[in-house]
């Protein structure tokens, strides 16, 4: 028997009202299933609605039509069961690393003891033990994103939504963070929806990679990666990885061209 999907998007459409009153479609009849503990990467040309997709699941954006179900329940508003990590640095600067990580448990009125324990466990997992008392301004970009991941995980969410979380980091730190994320996933497996514009990153992390079309965003195709876990960076040179990369790259390029006018037309 096939288990029911953890997360299901059914025929979801999102339209925004632009300043001058016109309706702009951002996502168009998109359906998507994510299995429990699966990592699904989403790539697509910029402005295709990748982030909107995550914000939909988070409950920060409402679908104009269609529905989103998590464990069978319709998602109507934001909730602690769907943690999110943003590209921009969203740590609360007035809280220490510890204060940030225990923000979620504290909101739910958990006793101090419990909050501390949860916080130290996840600070440990993201490799920041010893930095509990540090303020975000004392941390590097990579460290801040590690705290942001710990903060989301401390809530023990059903789904982790990651919106280009490593996009602002330098190349070396980014690779390190990807390995760290997989390492964390091995320790505390979560269902992860990972939006990125970095195709290597999408393939390295994901069990599946969804390619979105240019705006309005639809699912163009999915690439399934039958690569074993735990994964190491070596897989990036494997034939299966490279073949998948060629496919995704070709699709993304084609979609990107549909939004960008050709150079000759620009000159005219």
């Amino acid at each position: 028997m096939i288990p029911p999907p953890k997360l299901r998007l059914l025929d979801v459409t999102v339209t925004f009202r632009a300043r001058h009153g016109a309706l702009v479609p951002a996502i168009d009849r998109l359906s998507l299933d994510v299995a429990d503990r699966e990592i699904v990467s989403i790539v697509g040309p910029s402005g295709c609605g990748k982030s909107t997709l995550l914000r939909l699941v988070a409950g920060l954006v409402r679908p104009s039509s269609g529905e989103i179900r998590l464990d069978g329940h319709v998602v109507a508003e934001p909730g602690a069961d769907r943690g999110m990590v943003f590209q921009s640095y969203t740590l609360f600067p007035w809280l220490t690393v510890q204060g940030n990580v225990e923000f979620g448990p504290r909101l739910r009125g958990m006793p101090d003891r419990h909050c501390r324990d949860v916080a130290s466990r996840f600070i440990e997992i993201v490799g920041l033990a010893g930095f509990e008392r540090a303020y975000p301004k004392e941390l590097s970009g990579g460290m801040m994103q590690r705290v942001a991941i710990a903060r989301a995980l401390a809530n023990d969410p059903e789904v982790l939504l990651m919106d280009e979380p490593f996009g602002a980091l330098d190349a070396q730190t980014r690779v390190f963070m990807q390995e760290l994320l997989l390492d964390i996933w091995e320790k505390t497996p979560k269902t992860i929806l990972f939006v990125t514009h970095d195709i290597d990153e999408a393939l390295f992390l994901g069990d599946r990679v969804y390619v979105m079309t240019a705006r309005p965003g639809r699912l163009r195709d999915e690439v399934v990666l039958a690569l074993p876990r735990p994964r190491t960076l070596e897989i990036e040179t494997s034939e299966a990885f490279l073949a998948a990369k060629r496919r995704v790259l070709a699709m993304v390029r084609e979609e990107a061209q549909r939004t960008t006018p050709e150079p000759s037309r620009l000159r005219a």
Partner: protein
Amino acid sequence: MSLARTGGAIARRRRGPLSEVLRPQEAIPRRTYLRILTTSAAALIAAWCVLTYGRLVAPLFLPSPTAVLATGVAMAQDGTLLQNAQASLLVIVTGWALAVLAGVPVGVLMGSFKAVEALIEPVIDFVRYLPVSALIPLLILYIGIGPAEKIAVIFIGTFFQLVLLVADVAAHVPHEQLDVAYTLGASRSQVIRRVLLPATLPGVMDTLRITMGWAWTYLVVAELVSADRGLGFMILDSMRGLFTDRIFVGLAVIGGLGLCFDLVFKWLHRVLLPWSPKA
């Protein structure tokens, strides 16, 4: 790429010390900074000495440093300085504190809720371009010429500017910080209390410091128009008797007090908000 190459060339080429110091936005050694600072202060005092002791300017227009110092000591000893400074401080702190108590909440609401912004913007936008000095006759008519009138001048002068500055601070709280709090399970009131309000603190602290500076201007204007005590009154009264040295003492005290307030606010920022990037 070409930019990087140009930068390298600048770094390599040998230049004089002046050119080293005058590179835009570039940090300079602390010792160099202090040296320039002391030179500047010394030059000012030297110029003052030359002009007065060299009898280039009549004492009626510019009294000598020693004369000002002697007058200052005498005024401190006979109590005039303390009495006038107390009167001014009472007015300025009361007026400013009332404006802060009323203006900060209104500003936060205005910056956070578009509906509140639409509600109060018409009033604020009109009054903010109205110089407080233009309102003084009306305030005298309504309230009289006692301390209450001067407190009102400072309140009105500070309140409207404060509301706009605080509203700007609140409106610039990063939206993602609110979003992330929602995804961590925060209710709307939790987002306001636990994210929006603490996020505005550094900006509000800056605003308090800036508006306190402006409050001094309004105070002196109010005291020049109508007062029987206060530092502004002291200056005006000294002018009537052509006591230029007393005017200079008044200016020095006002400047000194303003500087003190500024330093206290900067210190408070560091102590109360150690997490702030500006602390």
